[in-house]
């Protein structure tokens, strides 16, 4: 177990040098003007500040399941929550929101890998979401640079760099604007290894983009296009839910031997805050994480809706008085399992199948439209694998099959009530 006194026993000079380090890194993440980013996105999610999934203390942050330290001194050393306090002694954390955690991951990538470069529209001044703040100043314009305004160019350029074995970290300013790059990503990046008989490959390419809704983005600032990439064998698609997750998953994505589309839910950039380990660490790709253990129904989601699902599960057991009459007393003690899929492609079929075989019920939640969304693929596979164990059809809570309509977004994007209703319905089926 973690022993708080152990830290105190560190020599004061070691402590101050650690602090010095983190202060220096922190300073370059502080916006110079305070508001070079979109407005606080129409209010932060009501549930996020209080979410039990965010790790507000050093101890909880360092005990993250699946966390793998990447220490140059001790190559391959693995630490997990099961191991003793020795593994986290001397590990520091710092309070970061998600854009700072993304920046921290990229700063480590640049520091440790001389071939790594970061590029995209407006990244040199820090990016419109502030994820590259100070990196150009710290690492130079040769390594962190603006591109002209061309997404197909950015993706193609990244493929070229990666095909030469160098590390390319590209930013597409919004997931909504990834479509000009669709050909480069789907026809080129995804197929590069395959079409060269394994001689070439662009595994060192990572394409980051902000995704999902903020409440008032409408057609072109609220989309969740992950589903469009689901059929692109050869690609990986990753969506983190929080600062700690973003850092670990991004570092894993950058180093994964496959091209990765890394989609960052933009409402979480500022609204999700955690103590984030300052050392280099990775979280596994292709692995879902069970956030709440349960036995009666599985809720599967990723990104922003995680927090709506958390509220919905909470409301099921203790509904607000205005909703109480909608929630039969017999259901309130139902044990709901909540899983964060984290990697959309290739998805963790084992964890989901195991869970649904136990619970017999599955509700999938995503912001994208229903038809041919990621939920469709997962439903088909799970219904095949769990057919005899299912007590209810797989249920999908999604955006409607329309483009995202700005003024109507609150009735378009699944919220905690729609999720709650689907849970109740599925439990009663």
């Amino acid at each position, binding site marked *: 177990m973690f022993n708080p006194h152990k830290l105190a026993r560190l020599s004061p000079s070691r402590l101050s040098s650690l602090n010095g380090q983190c202060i220096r890194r922190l300073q370059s993440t502080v916006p110079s003007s305070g508001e070079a980013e979109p407005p606080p996105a129409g209010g932060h999610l009501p549930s996020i500040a209080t979410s039990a999934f965010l790790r507000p203390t050093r101890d909880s942050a360092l005990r993250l399941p699946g966390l793998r330290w990447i220490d140059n001194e001790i190559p391959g050393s693995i630490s997990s929550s099961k191991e003793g306090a020795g593994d986290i002694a001397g590990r520091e954390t710092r309070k970061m929101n998600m854009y700072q955690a993304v920046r921290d991951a990229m700063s480590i990538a640049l520091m440790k890998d001389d071939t790594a470069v970061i590029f995209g529209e407006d990244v040199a001044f820090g990016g419109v979401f502030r994820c590259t703040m100070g990196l150009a100043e710290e690492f130079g314009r040769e390594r962190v640079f603006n591109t002209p305004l061309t997404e197909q160019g950015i993706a193609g350029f990244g493929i070229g760099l990666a095909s030469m074995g160098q590390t390319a970290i590209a930013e597409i300013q919004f997931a909504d604007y990834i479509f000009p790059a669709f050909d480069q990503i789907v026809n080129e990046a995804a197929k590069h290894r395959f079409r060269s008989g394994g001689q070439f490959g662009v595994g060192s390419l990572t394409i980051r983009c902000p995704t999902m809704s903020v409440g*008032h983005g409408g057609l072109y600032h609220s989309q969740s296009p992950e589903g469009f990439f689901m059929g692109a064998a050869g690609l990986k698609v990753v969506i983190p839910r929080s600062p700690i997750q973003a850092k670990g998953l991004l570092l894993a994505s950058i180093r994964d031997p496959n091209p990765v589309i890394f989609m960052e839910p933009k409402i979480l950039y500022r609204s999700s805050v955690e103590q984030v380990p300052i050392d280099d660490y990775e979280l596994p790709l292709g692995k879902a994480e069970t956030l709440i253990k349960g036995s009666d129904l599985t809720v599967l989601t990723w990104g922003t809706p995680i927090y709506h699902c958390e509220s919905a599960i909470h409301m099921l057991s203790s509904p607000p008085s205005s909703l109480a009459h909608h929630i039969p007393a017999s259901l309130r003690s139902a044990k709901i399992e909540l899983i964060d899929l984290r990697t959309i492609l290739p998805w963790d079929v084992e964890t989901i199948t195991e869970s649904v075989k136990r619970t017999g019920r599955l509700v999938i939640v995503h912001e994208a439209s229903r038809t041919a969304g990621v939920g469709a693929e997962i439903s088909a596979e799970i219904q095949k694998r769990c057919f005899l164990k299912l007590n209810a059809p797989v249920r999908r809570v999604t955006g409607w099959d329309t483009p995202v309509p700005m003024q109507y977004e609150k009735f378009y994007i699944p919220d905690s009530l729609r999720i709650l209703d689907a849970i109740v319905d599925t439990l009663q089926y």
Partner: protein
Amino acid sequence: MFRIFRTNLQVQTLRRGVATSSIQTNPQLPSHSYGHLPTSQSPITSTLHFFNSVMPDGKQIPTYRVLNGDGQVLDGAELPEIDEALARKMYEQMVQLPIIDNLLYNVQRQGKISFYMTAHGEEATLIGSAAALNNSDEVLGQYREMGVLLWRGFGYDSVMAQCFGNYEDTSSKGKQMPVHFGSRKYHFHPISSPLATQIPQAAGVGYAIKRDPLRRGKNCAVVYFGEGAASEGDFHAGMLLASTVPSPTLFIARNNGFAISTPASEQYHGDGIAARGPGYGIDTVRVDGNDVLAVLSAVREARRRCLEQGRAVLVEAMTYRVGHHSTSDDSFAYRPRQEVEDRKRIDNPIARYKKFLESRGWWNESEEEELKDRIKKEVMKAFRRGENLRRPELKEMFSDVYGGEEPWNLKEQREELKALLKKYGGDWEPWKKELKKFKGEGKEFIE
């Protein structure tokens, strides 16, 4: 070797002119009716010469200007045909833009609308070009072209309706973000946030006009875009199609120096956007975008050529984005405040034009106050009205996805939402609150 080769060529093609049928014993470059190359009339040269400019001697493309900074006509410049009434209308239209922009910018800051983009500094480019067009020319804008719509009579109420997304918003029934205007009536195609997508579309619009006997030779397609958007593949696609197919399409590049934080110097290495026109074989002009009379002249002539040739013409208007990119941006994070202040002071397009009008006796200070007062009052009136109107009916969320018969999935999903609203609409506070914002409060769903 090379000498002999060249001599052969000269003998064969220059002296004898056309290809002969005489049997050659040595291999020869084929000659051709196009000249010396199979598919080109490119003259043959013996000088190894690289070039990197569309102007002779590597000079930059010049910028056409009519009025100097003091609003006086430059030596040798020709005034466009303009009478007092048109001149005054242009001025009034320019003056109204910052008034609306300041109001809506501040209103966004107060959280009353979700987003806004100003056109500070680009008033002359917008109004000068709008005035040069026929009001029924089809316009495809980027997002900063509200001035063109207002010129055509769109009106403040329509602007407010769109920005507030209320039930009078005919642009998109509240579905798009603010400044995403669109109007069939005013021949203004709906704005789309993905950059440059409108550019090849404009080539198609131009072709449709050409095929329409009632509009052929009378109208053209007009596409506006920023110098940043011109880096997208779609820009090249559009230029290529409208020059090659061809189609009467007028390309107006607003080169305002920035694409969000990225300065134009990082957007291209060549001589701006204008240098690309000759690459597509089209007539091209660069104009001082802060000189409304120069813009008027240049766009009039560009339009005339566009109609006459039935082919693309390119205008690059040089201006400066005085405002922040949008309400989501603080431009002092990437450019010095002083630079902006200097620009504003040195060259305000409205002030420059006003001096011209005054020198003609077409405008005076007392009219200035009257005008600004009147516009402010009208804008405020429209603002108050727009602010207080509700959103469209909630059911509109599902409208306009398809024409013709609505597919089953949409029908079912509408029913799904209806059932949810019936069940929880009165009990769930966030929905109750939200429903009040819609015309009819969602009753069409609940009852």
